[in-house]
């Protein structure tokens, strides 16, 4: 590794030179212009806002998410819905965070919007506001079991209809569950395998 001994003088900044560590703690972003505009348009919807590593995250009320999406698209020019996903916090109330990423071409900026959802609680779908959210919401339903109210096509997408369980929940075993569907079609004709309460289900821990 003789090359590493080259003098660190010319060229762009090297890792050693920049002593000032980048900010690694989140700070409050309630006074951010986008957040203020959102709060002005939809009072009582914005619950919290923070900024970390230059990324703004706004937490909103669950039942207001479709209105937030509409507002961001129409009034703030966040026209591109990058992604919809969720995080399972298992022991927290509400259990899930549904996470949306939006991008604005005119601002060249991203915005993350989050809302909490308890187990089984439906989240208003934004697939009618952003067509791009359609499959992402289906994936979120499939993987986490968060229903999206008003979704035009609320089917599973990566697993099959009738599959029991939602794989990305923290209490779903990594090894998977034995669905038995392929082997015993006469026993589980729906193609889904045994339900979690079925005594015949093979225990996987």
């Amino acid at each position, binding site marked *: 590794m003789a*090359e*590493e001994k080259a003098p660190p003088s010319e060229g762009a900044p*090297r890792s050693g030179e920049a002593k000032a560590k980048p900010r690694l703690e989140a700070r409050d972003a309630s006074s951010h212009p986008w957040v203020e505009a959102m709060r002005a348009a939809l009072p009582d919807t914005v619950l919290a806002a923070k900024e970390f590593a230059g990324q703004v995250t706004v937490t909103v009320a669950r039942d207001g998410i479709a209105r937030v999406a509409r507002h961001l698209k129409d009034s703030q020019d966040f026209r591109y819905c990058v*992604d919809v996903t969720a995080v*399972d916090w298992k022991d927290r109330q509400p259990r899930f965070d549904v996470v949306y990423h939006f991008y604005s071409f005119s601002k060249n900026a991203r915005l993350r919007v989050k809302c909490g959802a308890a187990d089984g609680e439906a989240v208003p779908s934004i697939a009618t506001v952003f067509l791009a959210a359609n499959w992402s919401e289906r*994936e979120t339903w499939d993987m986490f079991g968060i229903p999206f109210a008003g979704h035009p096509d609320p089917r599973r*997408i990566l697993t099959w209809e009738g599959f029991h369980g939602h794989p990305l929940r923290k209490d779903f075993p*990594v090894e998977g569950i034995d669905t038995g569907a392929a082997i015993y079609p006469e026993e589980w004709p729906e193609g889904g395998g045994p339900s979690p309460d079925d005594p015949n289900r093979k225990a996987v821990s």
Partner: protein
Amino acid sequence: MTDERGLTDAERDEAEYFARRATDSGVARPASGVVEHHESPTLFDVQEMELNFGPQHPSTHGVLRLVLKVDGEKIIEAKPDVGYLHRGTEKLFETETYPMGIPHTDRMDYVAAATNNHAFCLTVEKLLGVEIPRRAQLVRVILDELQRLSSHLVWLGTSGIDLGAVTPFWYAFREREQILDFFEEYCGARLTLNCMRIGGLPFDLTPGWVERLAEFIDDLPARIDDYEQLLTDNRIWKKRTIGIGVISAEECVEWGLTGPVLRASGLEWDLRRAQPYECYDELDFAIPTRSNGDTYDRYIVRVQEMRQSVRIVKQCLARLEPGEIRGKVPRVIKPVAEETYASIESPKGELGFYCVSNGTNRPYRMHCRPPSFINLQALPRLARGHLISDLVALIGTIDIVLGEVDR
């Protein structure tokens, strides 16, 4: 060569083609960029039939099943059915430490593993606040662009074969093999590269690698000319691709389409320029765009992108200096309990990772925003009203990799 109307052969072909297509099938290229389908008088009753396309169809490039509703050869509705390759990658990320996640990313978009590694590492680096040494940045950009070249070459070869152009495949794969040789020499693998680490790179370049790559890259534009000679003015190629799957830039944004698909519709948006990562901001390259947003334009955009990649690699090679290849990363990676999203311009579009940390050495949640998955979503929109044989062109043109769609 121009005729009495001052049109070249190619332009005359195009004009004739649209005139005939408009009368034949009721599909015209409109000024607005959106295909209109006007009803043509039918002799027989419309008989809808359901047809399974795939999952074992060779032109689906993997295991994609499309449930088609067809009237004769015309597609009324196409419903993609995905998930055959679902391996629970996101679940696996949660069970392993941060560096152990990188090899899983290789298996998502398996024809462009380097860009997957890159996006994954960038996300974790953002969470850690690590700075990447200059040499590592340059090598990462070289690897990315080589990967873009090889991914586009695979696309060029296979989507040519889908439409009956068998010859370009052999030329495209010849160069792709050479690119894979460079990867093999660098990291020992040809497809599942695992060629980046959080904070930098696993290895420095081998002796002579740069010189051989410079030689290969100098030679490449002439090879790209060869592919273009086979396809760009090829009458059959044009007839199979012009006016197929037209989509406007507004609709692309609405559907979340990114990458060459978006640029072929006229929006000059590329993450390497819009939100530069590594050292893309100091490199000189153009973002090729076209305005018609059809399959032919997407082909042109990809070929032009290959030429730009050649330019980028050349500039990076010229800037390479000896130096460190790994930033100051702690031995055990335990980011603060926060969340970040980072994305790069992969050969297919915006590839992003969303990472939630809870302060331990494993990601609490690692989500991938795969361009193929989101782009595939628009296939029913693109396919509506076209013929089944055009569907093959459309699956090729959005350039999906099913490993990434299903993860």
